[in-house]
């Protein structure tokens, strides 16, 4: 029960953090994607099932703010969680380096996936801009490393 409440708090707090950062600290579209980062982290630490469920919910939250392509972020985050869940069988994602590399690549993959979904469903590639595409992976890496350290610290490792 406690873990459920704690998970719900983290779920809501993550959405709030994403909104807050996007609304007040985003420059030219460059902002850390906390929801993606947390999806990856949860999938890496707790497995793909929990990661996919959380990612799908957070994806819906991101999609609500969009005028079109409702469901694209949910699909991307779900796939990201699944991919990380598959990768954690081969790679030790508890280590900071692999986790950072996974996050870096997942970020670009997410951009690519969103663009392709736009191309498929709206006939136009959704391009987020060079600044966002180039800067966001680094921001995400920083965010996932920070979140991983916090997680480890909390678990006493």
């Amino acid at each position, binding site marked *: 029960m406690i873990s459920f409440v704690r998970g719900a708090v983290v779920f809501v707090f993550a959405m709030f953090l994403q909104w807050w950062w996007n609304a007040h600290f985003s420059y030219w579209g460059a902002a850390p994607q906390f929801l993606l980062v947390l999806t990856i982290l949860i999938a890496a630490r707790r497995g793909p099932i929990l990661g996919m469920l959380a990612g799908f919910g957070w994806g819906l939250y991101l999609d609500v703010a969009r005028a079109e392509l409702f*469901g694209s972020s949910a699909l991307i985050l779900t796939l990201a969680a699944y991919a990380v869940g598959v990768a954690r069988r081969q790679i030790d994602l508890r280590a900071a380096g692999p986790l950072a590399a996974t996050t870096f690549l997942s970020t670009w993959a997410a951009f690519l996936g969103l663009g392709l979904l736009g191309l498929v469903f709206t006939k136009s590639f959704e391009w987020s801009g060079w600044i966002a595409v180039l800067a966001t992976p680094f921001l995400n890496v920083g965010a996932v490393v920070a979140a991983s350290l916090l997680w480890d610290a909390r678990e006493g490792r």
Partner: protein
Amino acid sequence: MQRETRIANFILGALSALSLLLLSLPLSTPVRSLKAGTGYIFNPLAYRGEAGYRRIAGSPARIKQLLLADIENETLRAELRRGEWLATTVSALALENERLRRALVLKAPAGRSPVWVRVMERDPIHWFRSLVVDAGADRGLSLNDPVLGPRDGLLVAVGRIVDVRPNTATVLLLTDELSAAAAYLSSGTLEGLIQGQDGPRLRMNYLNAEARLSAGDSVYTSPTSATFPPDVLIGRVARVNQRDPFLTFQSVEVAPAADASSLQELIVLRARPMDGEAKPPSYTPVFPPVFVPAVSTAPAASSAPAVSSAPAISTAPARPRRRAPAPAAVKPPQASSEEAAFEAVDPEEPR
């Protein structure tokens, strides 16, 4: 592990299918309903978050404003206290100014050197007996100097100096039991002795037993007074005492013109000025107007006494009118500087 993988694959398939369904049917009613429901759940997060963020973001400014307001509040409180103090001071100064302004129109008696003093101390136990003023030998005060006080544009008798110290002096009030002064009633030639009773009233004794006395008469210092200049208002008759058949005189109660509780500035008539001070104006003989026949152009000047030609008499500032004063009762003014004629402006008295 296999089970987890299977579940993961199943969830992946389900969620992916759902996502694709949402992407494929964006305008369908279920999708729009889901989107609306999701928005209903998640939008308050942003809305409330924004409101909370603005509130939190505005906190430093509010705290700063609060601190500044507190500082300003303290400053304004201090200014307010200063303002209240200033207002009180200004009010006191205005009252004092008014008193002094009125006092300026008063004329000191000729031959006397007046000095203004402030009442410095009173003894509550002996309220009607004495008070201390802030001048003493340093300002030329000497024993038995008469002390007058302003009252409605008029100088009235207050008392006399009985103790002189370097910087202060004690004034024995007329209301003190030990005070006594020769006085006369304005309604006639009746003279008597005004005495204090250690209370708010004075008593005038030794009035002619056959005289008809009435309340309301003014009482003035007599020219026979050894202390006061003549014709200084002492008070008014408040009550005529019942005649005592065993006494050969009558007495009246007199309400003093000088209220002992309201005296703040007094004038002491010094016998002589201090070194370096201007000498008081020389004495001009002033005789009661009754001696002045028609000052006009009476050709029979020979029938008028020499003093009748003194225009100063007819233009003299108001002095209490004495009805048929006995010439013998008026001492020659040059006889004593203490008993020099005193001109007091009394607007109430007919001129």
